[in-house]
């Protein structure tokens, strides 16, 4: 197995890395948005649940949560695929962080604008969707990118639950070729390239959505 073949193997692993990153980021985005919206709508009775969720998922190491999901749940009769286990651990951790990021961004939305929408005849939900969420997302872009980058950097843990992502492919290649320095260096470069591509996409989106007077948090 020469280095070119190994590189192609790692590229196939990169596809899985990207898939896991997207799945976990989308999970985090959905959970974070859900919590932020519920809080903004004043669903006070859910607050203890949110506080507990955020406290636990920000405090427990990701690998522990992943192992509970993948190796622990089968003992009570629930088996989940590796990708779902990643979403249930890394994705939910991202959700816990994003919920706090969104809370900060929502605080930057001026109350007067919401009041103006309500005075015009918008429902609370319409005001949230038309005024608050669009502003919140714009203000939260830099912090969201940080969080998605963290998700990317935690994807090598997917290796432990059998997902053939970059690190799993790299480790398999090293075990047969013993070219650890070259192969792991190639893996590092691939992660860096994915990271840079993410940043380019975000910068393009940010440029498109940047609005005078709306600063990021």
């Amino acid at each position: 197995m020469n280095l070119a073949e190994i590189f192609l193997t790692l590229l196939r692993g990169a596809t899985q890395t990207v898939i896991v990153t997207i799945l976990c980021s989308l999970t985090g985005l959905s959970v974070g948005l859900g919590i932020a919206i519920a809080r903004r709508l004043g669903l006070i009775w859910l607050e203890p649940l949110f506080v507990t969720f955020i406290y636990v998922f920000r405090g427990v190491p990701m690998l522990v949560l992943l192992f509970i999901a993948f190796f622990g749940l089968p003992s009570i009769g629930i088996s989940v695929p590796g990708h779902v286990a990643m979403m249930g651990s890394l994705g939910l951790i991202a959700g816990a962080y994003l919920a706090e990021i969104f809370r900060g961004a929502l605080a930057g939305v001026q109350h007067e604008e919401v009041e103006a929408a309500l005075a015009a005849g918008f429902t609370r939900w319409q005001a949230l969707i038309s005024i608050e969420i669009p502003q919140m997302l714009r203000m939260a872009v830099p912090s969201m990118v940080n969080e998605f980058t963290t998700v990317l950097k935690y994807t090598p843990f997917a290796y432990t639950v059998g997902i053939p992502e970059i690190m799993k492919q790299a480790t398999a290649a090293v075990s047969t070729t013993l070219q650890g320095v070259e192969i792991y260096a190639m893996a590092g470069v691939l992660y860096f390239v994915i990271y840079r591509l993410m940043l380019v996409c975000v910068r393009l989106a940010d440029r498109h959505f940047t609005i005078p007077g709306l600063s990021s948090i």
Partner: protein
Amino acid sequence: MALLEVRNLSKTFGHHTVLDGVDFDLEAGQIKSVMGPSGCGKSTVLRCINRLVEPSAGTIVFDGKPVTAARSDLLAIRQRIGFVFQNYALYRHLTVIDNVTLALRKLRRLSPRAAADRAGAELRRLNIDELAAQYPAELSGGQRQRVAIARALAMDPAVLFFDEPTSALDPIMAREVGGIIDRLRRDNVTVLCVTHDFELARTISDSIVFLSGGRVRAEDSGDRLANDYGDPHIRDFFTKGRTSP
């Protein structure tokens, strides 16, 4: 029957009574101002009428429909009351044209083209059509004020509320606002204006409701209020300055 009837309107925040039995009517086509010293509850009157703030007591009837009734169609009523806020409250993430079309598209369900046409007409009426693609942060205070007025007028409201329309403007721009409201009079727009700017109130209003201590002390023309009233609350306001509590 008056377009707007306010009867015995009261509002308390905790132990603090802000409004204490306020009564007045507003006829269609009339321009009426609510004046009084700072903290007398002027802005609360406007917010109670469309129930942005829940009244503690009293009844409000708008165009024959009870606003304060438990089953009132509040959203429909609010769509017929244009509200121009003190700080304009423009949506910062939207351009001027989108600020004006948003409610038309979301509430009136107009197509984007029809909403843009409607909004364009209002922007032209206020001489700000060249600002359509600008964001609020790129506008001056006076321009923001006009956008806020255009946004309210685009919904073709039965009445337009102004909350302290000149408080954030320099004297020249404040006079311009007076001119705009005067032009609205010619278009037969009904206006209820809360202000502590006596010159504005005197110039634009058919009559002025004078509020002090949460109560209506008098309702009359500006000149008569300033000169002919013996009520100490009114006399103090005009002789000792207009921001005393």
